[in-house]
């Protein structure tokens, strides 16, 4: 394990401090709406971190992750509705299915480069959306509605309060954050970055690029699917227009890009900022038609334009210019 996971103690301190803050924070919140925003932040953070593996680390920009999001949500929905299974189980089945589909589709699609890959994944997600829309077993356009106010429990992951949701989602955010951190400076992480930088030279130093890209694709599909499962349980209603539109695919990228792609906490930062902007503008400006999305779009443009490396570059600036001594380097 030691050779696989490589986490230094400063990260652990930071992580625990952040976690503590995230745990304590909701106790000061008296209305559900901010809590709802925080839950959304968790969902987007998970998705952003998942996408980050293929889009950020491996540099294969997928614009079709809504497919996996939808598959996760649907597996959970069908499991709960049709089989009475616990979401705690179905979410992992969803992860398996997503990874399986990522494996099958990834093999041909990952051969594509740049914009072609983005477009092919977009087409893939669009196919998925239309198929789910017309597939009566999964409820088709009517969607799946598994809201049942009589059964709130941990087994069904249905609660009348928002707090349990928040803490469950926070747990998964923390888990995936640790996973990302663990992989960040591991062989896997370095290999993905090498693939992103230059596939030819990556191959020349012995990296099985196709295999690692596929692994990253599957991993990210699994994580995004997990987010889908969690969101479905929170919303307790899913249909293809909610969980599979093209916009979600783009927003996942946006979360990661805004925070900083290929970094550990970038997607988390992006999720916090983007969700707050999105919800805040909607709550404030929705009196005029379209004004909220207009403001939202302008803010996104400004942030992406002036911080092309993400908000994370604000924090990292100091460290970059600093010349590290070999001792410090070892810690890195």
């Amino acid at each position, binding site marked *: 394990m*030691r*050779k696989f996971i*490589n986490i230094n103690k400063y990260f652990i301190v930071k992580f625990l401090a952040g976690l503590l803050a995230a745990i304590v924070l909701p106790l000061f919140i008296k209305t559900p709406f901010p809590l709802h925003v925080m839950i959304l932040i968790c969902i987007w953070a998970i998705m952003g971190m998942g996408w980050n593996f293929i889009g950020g680390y491996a540099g294969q920009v997928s614009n079709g992750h809504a497919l996996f999001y939808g598959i996760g949500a649907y597996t959970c929905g069908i499991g709960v509705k049709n089989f009475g299974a616990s979401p705690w189980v179905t979410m992992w089945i969803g992860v398996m299915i997503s990874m399986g589909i990522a494996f099958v589709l990834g093999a041909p699609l990952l051969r594509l480069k740049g914009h072609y890959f983005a477009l092919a994944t977009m087409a893939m997600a669009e196919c998925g959306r239309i198929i789910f829309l017309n597939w009566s077993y999964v409820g088709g356009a009517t969607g799946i509605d598994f809201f049942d106010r009589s059964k709130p429990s941990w087994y069904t992951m249905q609660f009348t309060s928002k707090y349990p949701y928040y803490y469950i989602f926070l747990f998964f955010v923390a888990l995936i954050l640790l996973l990302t951190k663990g992989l960040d*400076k*591991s*062989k896997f992480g*370095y*290999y993905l*970055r*090498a693939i*992103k*930088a*230059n596939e*030819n*030279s*990556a*191959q*020349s*130093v*012995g*990296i*099985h*690029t196709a295999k690692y890209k596929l692994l990253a694709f599957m991993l990210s599909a699994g994580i995004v699917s997990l987010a889908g499962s969690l969101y479905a349980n929170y919303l307790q209603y899913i249909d293809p227009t909610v969980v599979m539109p093209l916009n979600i695919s783009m927003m996942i990228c946006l979360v990661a890009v805004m925070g900083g792609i290929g970094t550990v906490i970038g997607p988390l930062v992006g999720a916090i900022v983007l969700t707050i902007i999105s919800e805040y503008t909607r709550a404030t400006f929705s009196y005029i038609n379209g004004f909220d999305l207009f403001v939202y779009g302008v803010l996104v443009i400004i942030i992406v334009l002036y911080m092309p490396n993400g908000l994370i570059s604000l924090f990292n600036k100091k460290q970059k210019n600093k*010349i*590290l001594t070999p001792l410090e*380097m*070892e810690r890195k």
Partner: protein
Amino acid sequence: MKVILEMKHATKKFGGLIANEDITFSIIEGEIIGMVGPNGAGKTTLFNSISGTHSLTSGHVIFDGTDITKKKPYEICKLGIGRTFQIPQALNEMSVFENVLVASLNRHQSISAAKEHTKKVIAMCGLASFIFMNAGDLNVMQKKRLEIARALATEPKLLLLDETMAGLSGVERKEAINLIQRIRISGITILMIEHVMEVVMSVSDRVVVLSSGKLLAEGTPEEVTQNQQVIQAYLGGSVH
């Protein structure tokens, strides 16, 4: 006298264009082989065929007893061939240290062991003062160094160097020759493409001459320089 690499009737065609035609030669363990030839002679194509970037149209490449003709670059690298690129293909946005580290991971499973190894390679290649620099910010000479360091970090048995001396000043060239000698001492066979004749003649044990995709001559530097065909085809302009 163990043969490490054997080219057997290697032919590579791109559509109608024949880049390499019926090339046969072999390399013995521990040698430094210089490969010379005018521009467009098919040297880099041959390199690409050996390292698996593309596969031969016909013929075979046998490395250390294994037929690697149809193998992929990463498999070939695992088997023990490291290469550099004529146009340096550094992993931009990664530091010099990380560039070499990625290559070190080829033989070292754990990060810490790989880091140790990386430090050695970096020290050997004289890149120690740049380790935190972004590879994209290096100058051409440093990038070429980095190419060598990266190839070396994969712990190859055979190293393919593609024009690592081009554009270097006299002093830098000396350092580079030094480096090549050191690499050889560590027991690595080297096949190098080089335009700078002075370098080829001084370090190579044997020289292979390509012209228009064909093998023109093979032998010690002295033999080759006296070969009439070579003089006509390649050195023709300068010998009068």
